[in-house]
């Protein structure tokens, strides 16, 4: 029983990290129909910024967290301005490819100008303290992740659906000139949407860095693939779907590891993807997705 609860705690932590990642993808998709695979590189740039700051003498956890988040936002804004604005109203595939292109460029720049090898960044270690609640080992990171994910989802859903700025972001992403006719500074509100996703990326970067203790050029791209799967599973573009998809994926990961005989331990990922495939076969639009949302940009 203890063991089961312990594993559920672990699954929640896995799930919330996936969910937080997926939320960044879903946010950009829901506001501008862009499947932003370069989200991973926003995370990577945030991580490398901390690495540089530490190399220059930064010691404080708070400073590192601030740098990661600020650089996440800045990077997202730069990507939007340089790469995504020119393809804003192009077909979605164009945007998706641009995102891949940006991702390849940034990863290789990190390889070229920093190093292809992993670089240790121990500064965020203090965030990752394990303590015991009764017999259960819980890490502060797991709790933080869960809390941040819940707050982020609720805040984002409220912001996008209830606030006027949220409405303006959603509208601007679809019809740039008409939204200007409402007196909205459209470029600025779309940038706000990106800044939000950059904020999320910065936060995720802090979590990954605290757990890993090092950065590498593919620091963000590997987790984003999982996040993408979570988004597809939950229904692309739906924020709630991203969160649910992430959680389901986290639970699947842990459950398969626990339930499968060790002989088949290596099949964990295969089975996860197989189950995702089954869900997609049954519901191509994902668990919470609507077909309208998927086809939105074509309207």
């Amino acid at each position, binding site marked *: 029983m203890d063991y089961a609860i312990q594993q559920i705690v672990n699954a929640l*932590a896995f799930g919330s990290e996936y969910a937080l990642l997926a939320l960044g993808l879903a946010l950009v998709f829901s506001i501008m129909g862009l499947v932003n695979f370069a989200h991973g590189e926003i995370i990577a740039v945030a991580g490398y910024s901390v690495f540089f700051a530490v190399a220059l003498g930064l010691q404080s956890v708070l400073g590192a967290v601030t740098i990661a988040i600020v650089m996440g936002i800045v990077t997202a804004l730069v990507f939007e301005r340089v790469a995504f604005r020119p393809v804003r109203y192009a077909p979605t595939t164009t945007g998706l490819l641009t995102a891949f292109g940006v991702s390849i460029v940034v990863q290789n720049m990190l390889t070229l100008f920093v190093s292809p090898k992993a670089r240790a960044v121990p500064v965020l270690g203090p965030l990752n303290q394990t303590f015991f609640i009764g017999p259960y*080992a819980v890490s502060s990171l797991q709790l933080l992740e869960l809390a941040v994910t819940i707050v982020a989802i609720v805040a984002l859903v409220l912001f996008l659906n209830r606030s006027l700025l949220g409405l303006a972001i959603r509208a601007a992403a679809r019809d740039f000139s008409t939204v200007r006719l409402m007196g909205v500074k459209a470029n600025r509100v779309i940038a706000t949407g990106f800044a939000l996703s950059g904020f999320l990326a910065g936060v995720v970067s802090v979590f990954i860095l605290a757990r890993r203790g090092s950065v590498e050029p593919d620091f963000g791209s590997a987790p984003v693939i999982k996040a993408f799967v979570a988004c597809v599973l939950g229904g692309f573009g739906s924020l709630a779907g991203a969160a649910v998809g992430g959680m389901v994926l986290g639970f699947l*990961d842990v459950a398969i590891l626990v339930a499968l005989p060790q002989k088949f331990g290596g099949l964990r990922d295969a089975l996860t993807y197989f189950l995702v495939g089954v869900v997609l076969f049954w519901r191509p639009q994902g668990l919470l997705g609507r077909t309208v949302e998927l086809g939105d940009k074509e309207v």
Partner: protein
Amino acid sequence: MSHRSLLLGTAAALALFAGPALAEGPTIKIGLAASLTGDFAPYSEAEGARCMADQLNKAAGPDDPKIEILIEDSRSDAQLSVSLGQKFLDEKAQVIAGVPFPDALIPMSQMAASYGATVYSAPNTQVEMHEVGLDNFIAGAVPDPMNAAATAVAVAAAGGKATVILTSEDGASWSAKTPEWFGEALEKTGGKVVGKLAYSFGTTDWSPQIAEIKAFADKPDTVYVCGPVPDVGILVRQLRSNGFDGIVAGCDGFDDPSLEETVGNPAYLDKVMFATHGVMGDGGQIDQFIAACKAAGYKVNGIFDALGADMVQVVYDAAKASGSDDPVKLREAIRASDGSKTVMSDNLSFKEKLAYPVKTIPVIGFKDGKRVVIADDVPVFVPYLK
């Protein structure tokens, strides 16, 4: 005369003009399809080889062999390293190497055979290489079962009796079988394997595995894993912070300078031990070599560069002995030699096993966060290789 031979002839003529025309000794080309980027970048031997070759060439007299190192990035990609191997063979390399895993090295050896060339993989340890029946393959390191056996002896000496082993298919037998061999060797000392868990390379959150470890009915006092950094460093940190205070043991995958930083807390390194290829951190020959190379501007990293340097030394000595640039004669000379004095060993010889050296295997532990040598012997009982 075809166009092709015309072109080649022109190129050769140009090369003659460009090359040191006065050299008498043979010129040996070593082509390294090195993992400069990608997963295995921490385990690349290229910079050390380059540094050693430059040192030897500088010191060489007019009659001594010249070593020319050709390096291209294989991106840790087996396939690209096979293609690059072909390129080096086109350029008449006598020795080539690629990603240090069988999936690259076996096809490369088959390819090199028709040129008479040798595949010499300095960091390679996998047993498959010695089972396929390749005649032109040489590994610079001892095979994994010996590494596992040496670790088992050290673990037993430190009181380890009940071990959990973590296996992954991602590094073939290196990461999948070495833990099994460790278990077998530990059982020989009276210990036992109480559990086995699977993982994938790239794992950064080990909490499900750790929860499993804690839930085993037989409480383990040792965790063994053979994988790359930073994964294994993260495992150490997370095991410790979850209250596991037993032994964490591993293989040469641990031997990267970034291990300590990844683990973070120096106290966590107590009771961490791993078997590797040579002793570093004691100010000995390897440290001196690495320091000299670093000072000269080579981007050397650690023990794998020393392995690369040893390869160059062995090839150089063989070239000197055979006095020829013929690849087959070169290989015969390597295998006939009673031993080379190299960075890592006073007497590195392939005479006994032909495809790999027999040497002592240092097991590294930690004291106050610093690396110390716990043992440095040739293991008596070796599983699998019988």
